[in-house]
């Protein structure tokens, strides 16, 4: 029971990381109609910069700030130089160009930081465990990630739903031409939205760094999952991103934790682990296929022609 609670929380925490990635991606796609495969590279930039700053300064908070800033700046630079020219282009062209960006960034980090993966340790003041329920310890850092993620989600909600900037963002998502006609400086808006998405990706990267090896290509793994999230949730929908992220996070984590054990009930251990792990990694794709089979536009997506 305790293990289930732990795993469920792990799933939520993973979901929160995915949400940070997904909200940026879905905003950019919903508003600018841009597929950005290099979103994962921004995650990677955040992780690399964060890990490096943490190693030199021994300050976790500084590392987070640095990671976010680096990702945001990289993102806005990307937007200025390349994305702007891609907005009017076909999705296919965007896929190809941003794929080129992935190649570039993966190679760049290898040149700058070498092929050895970096590691980022959990800071001392966040290590250890807290008792979330009497007798149930849970890693403090994971709680921190959850808290940060929820805070960001709330902030995003307030921003998108309540503020004037958010209103413009939602209007932009609904009708690009209209918002232009209303005199909103669309060029600046786009850059800001892109920068916001990049910052969130960077934040996700820094906070997730202690859980994984910081290396070239780390962005792509999470990018694919992020796409699964927004496909399930429906492109352009923040609500969809939240539901999708939680769903994917929980299904993936619980699947990895329990499916091999489940398979051991009737298969030999080696085969069970094999089949269980395979099915666990496939699980979210199966869920996505299922959702799309019933609702081809995702749970909260708008039906486009």
């Amino acid at each position, binding site marked *: 029971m305790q293990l289930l609670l732990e795993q469920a929380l792990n799933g939520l925490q993973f979901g929160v990381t995915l949400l940070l990635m997904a909200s940026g991606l879905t905003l950019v796609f919903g508003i600018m109609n841009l597929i950005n495969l290099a979103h994962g590279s921004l995650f990677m930039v955040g992780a690399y910069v964060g890990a490096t700053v943490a190693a030199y300064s021994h300050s976790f908070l500084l590392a987070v700030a640095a990671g976010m800033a680096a990702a945001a700046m990289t993102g806005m630079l990307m937007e200025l130089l390349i994305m702007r020219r891609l907005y009017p282009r076909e999705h296919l062209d965007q896929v190809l160009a941003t794929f080129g960006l992935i190649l570039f960034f993966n190679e760049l980090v290898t040149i700058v930081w070498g092929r050895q993966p970096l590691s980022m340790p959990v800071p001392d003041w966040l290590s250890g465990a807290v008792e979330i329920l009497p007798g149930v310890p849970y890693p403090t850092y994971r709680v921190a990630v959850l808290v940060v993620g929820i805070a960001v989600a709330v902030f995003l909600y307030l921003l998108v739903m309540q503020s004037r900037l958010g209103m413009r963002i939602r209007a932009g998502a609904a009708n690009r031409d209209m918002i232009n006609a209303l005199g909103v400086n669309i060029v600046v808006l786009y850059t800001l939205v892109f920068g916001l998405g990049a910052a969130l990706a960077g934040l996700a990267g820094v906070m997730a760094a202690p859980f994984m090896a910081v290396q070239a290509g780390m962005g792509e793994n999470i990018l694919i999952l992020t796409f699964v999230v927004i496909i399930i949730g429906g492109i352009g929908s923040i609500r969809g991103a939240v539901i999708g992220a939680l769903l994917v996070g929980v299904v993936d984590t619980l699947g990895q934790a329990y499916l091999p054990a489940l398979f051991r009930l009737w298969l030999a251990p080696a085969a069970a682990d094999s089949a269980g792990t395979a099915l666990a990694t496939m699980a979210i794709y199966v869920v996505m296929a299922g959702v*799309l089979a019933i609702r081809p536009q995702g749970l909260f997506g708008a039906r486009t022609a």
Partner: protein
Amino acid sequence: MRLLLLVALPLALALVPPAARLLDNVYLITLVRQALIYALAAMALDFIMGYGRLVSFGHAAFFGLGAYTVGILGTHYMQDLALLFGWAGSNEALLAWPLAMAISGAYALLVGLISLRTSGIYFIMITLAFAQMVYYLFVSLSAYGGLTGLSLWLPNTIAGFDLLADGLYFYYLCLTLLLLAWWLLARIVASRFGQVLQGCRQNERRMRALGYRTYGYKLTAFVISGAVTGLAGALLANHAGYVSPGLMHWSMSGELIIIVLLGGLSSLIGPIYGAIILLLLEQLLTTITPYWQIILGPILILVVLLFKGGLYGTLTRRGSQA
């Protein structure tokens, strides 16, 4: 110009082996052979991407499934291990290659059945997801090498003859299959079926208003594409002597898309040029730096931003269309 490009290419490719001998660089034959195999897969992708606007980001799955079919059949045969109902596999191309096409085609049917209910970015992503599923499946199959993959003991025999061991014969076989596929796909494009496919690309709503039940035709095209890609996979397994899940990774799907776009979308011959360009680029760039992709990346970006229609399209001034 178009005629020149269409004729020059097969001719040039046919002359590669003698030229390689002249240059005393036999490795060139192997190199170009790999480009031909990738070109076959990319051509199959162009068939649906260029003519049907079905952007599949999961074609690597069909590539890998074709390759693994050959790999698994060969391994079982060599080790005399029962595979299915006591049958211990085979190392015979005339059996393995059609089977590779059938399996890839079958998976394409499954993927298409679900994916073609969506469109646009959703379609791109769900085809990607289906490829990822297969990737992870094979990564977890430790019996067949898992992440490290499977080595092939021997290349396939053809009708019992050990033809593929000879690099030269194999090269001409690949070239012949490529040109044959080109001819067949070109005929399909010009047929009634092809008109329907192209109509769906240009205006699917109008197609339905005219009375076409578009789903079935797109699905058929998708399956044909998957099967041909599977054949390319089978060829690759023999060429490399090795199969691994990396063949099904989404970066491979991306590479196939790059090849199509570099050479020219919806031309069928463009992908052949594209494969050769990518090959040349890789050879060229690695002499400059081992981190060659840091140059390739921006090159791709520039190609997208500046050259609509890829190389072939730009040369024949047939821009890539909406």
